[in-house]
């Protein structure tokens, strides 16, 4: 089995983001960047399938500016075999990303594509499902358990009511929840070895797909601030405030 994993470089989840004063977006200069957290789960799941002998090759693909390669390099350091970097210096919406990934899938012919369930920057939660629709493949979204059974994958999904289990035919798309696994850290020798693994360089322009953005971002602003509250001295005061002032109990 061959697996493709799509990864995205985003502002690190521990960074408190700052909205630009002119409302044009979020400041990304000199801000720590990392792999989108659930994409790490996607990589880990692919590597586990390889370790269990079920997958032969894993390819990591990213789309973005030159520095986006860091996320592919990191994937190579934990067991991914080779990388693809599709260069684009401007923002591409999930719809355009899915179209590029479709072309990559058509060329590489993986049996499975793993993605994170959502990117923590634009919070769209779309790319995996869109790619599945474009390919006519089934999808297992928000996966917290993945079991490979011959030509079928059984996926346990995190849904609002609890858990849902489905079986999907291969080839398939799986989008990963944070609870799917515990991503490993790269060891220093593996980081060194990863530097020798190949990353194919491509350019988004050369894919011949319509990646024009359909959504105009008019402004980005800070959410309204809550007015600052008070500290109470005792539990009795707290309960009295909740009862008589806030009137919520």
């Amino acid at each position, binding site marked *: 089995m061959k697996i493709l994993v799509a990864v995205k470089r985003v502002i690190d989840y521990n960074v408190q983001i700052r909205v630009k004063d002119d409302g044009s977006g979020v400041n990304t200069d000199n801000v720590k960047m990392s792999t989108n957290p659930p994409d790490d789960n996607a990589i880990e799941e692919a590597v586990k399938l390889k370790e269990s002998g079920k997958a032969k090759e894993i390819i990591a693909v990213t789309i973005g500016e030159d520095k986006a390669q860091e996320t592919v390099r990191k994937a190579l350091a934990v067991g991914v075999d080779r990388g693809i970097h599709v260069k684009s210096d401007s923002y591409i919406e999930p719809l355009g990303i899915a179209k590029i990934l479709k072309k990559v899938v058509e060329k590489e012919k993986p049996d499975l594509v793993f993605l994170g369930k959502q990117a923590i920057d634009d919070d769209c939660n779309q790319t995996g499902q869109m790619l599945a629709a474009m390919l006519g493949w089934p999808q297992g979204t928000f996966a917290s358990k993945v079991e490979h059974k011959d030509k079928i994958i059984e996926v346990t999904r995190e849904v609002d009511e*609890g858990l849902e289990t489905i079986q999907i035919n291969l080839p398939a798309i799986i989008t990963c929840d944070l609870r799917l696994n515990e991503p490993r850290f790269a060891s220093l020798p593996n980081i060194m070895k990863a530097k020798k693994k190949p990353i194919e360089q491509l350019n988004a322009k050369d894919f011949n797909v319509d990646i024009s953005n359909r959504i105009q971002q008019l402004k980005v602003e800070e959410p309204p601030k809550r007015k600052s509250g008070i500290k109470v001295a005792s539990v009795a005061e707290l309960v009295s405030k909740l009862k008589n002032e806030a009137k919520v109990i």
Partner: protein
Amino acid sequence: MSVLLIAEHNNSNLKVFTLNAITAASKIDQEINVLVAGNKCANVAKEVATIPLVKKVLCCDSPSYENFLPENLAPLISKLSESHSHIIASANTFGKNFMPRVAALLDVSQISDVIKINSPDEFVRPIYAGNAFATVKSNDKKKCVTIRPTSFDPASTSGGTAELEKIDPIDVPSISKFVKREETKSERPELGTARIVISGGRGMQSGDNFKLINSIADKLNAAVGASRAAVDAGYIGNDHQVGQTGKVVVPDLYIAVGISGAIQHLAGMKESKIIVAINKDGEAPIFSIADYGLEADLFEALPQFLEELNKLNTIQK
């Protein structure tokens, strides 16, 4: 212009968040048609017909829609979208699963998780886990939109007499199969819709200590939540998780106990009407968004809290 709204249900009853999505839809256009796709779901269609804001109920009854598999649903929705300008669903795991598939089939960029509708093509949505709000304008002819249910009030459910129309299912190759659903059963109200939520964090120190939270939840008829740290530590199941990667809740009262207030947790609860924080670390970030902060050891404060509640003559349910 007209809106095609996809109803969420379990084949016998409508799920409440559909009502919030209908209110959102009414801010786009008054022509709201609701698709009820399911198996033996005629009762749901009848229920939807009584919602005054709904113009027409499109009922598509077929075993292939019984479990709302997106591979089966998306082709049906994209066909029905031909006569509509907007396709709308809730931004929960129901809508998030199929809507991008519909958008891709229509070659449309989806607008996810909308919290405010400025006009039929201009929307406000949170990004970066709610740490910024983006105002966006869609230039697509058709618009696929998912709605954050807690940002809109539920639509009224009585007095309507919408027309019912039967829709034929669409044949698609079967590439996915439903196996089972394990619903979390609880005597308490559901986390997503509860009026009061009390959540514990890493400060609870063990799963057993959650009984302190549970007894207060029972007294207040509250749902029990947790931070990701508490879930990761195994104190409580992940269906209780509040936050960016768990559930977003907007109760009248949110009580955070032993929760420091990581960005990812705040994203799931900071729109709550009243926030209470109980934490022994006076510098914990949770205090910066709390209406009432109590700097105290939770193992002393929670039993006292229960005692004080017991003293009250009445408690709102």
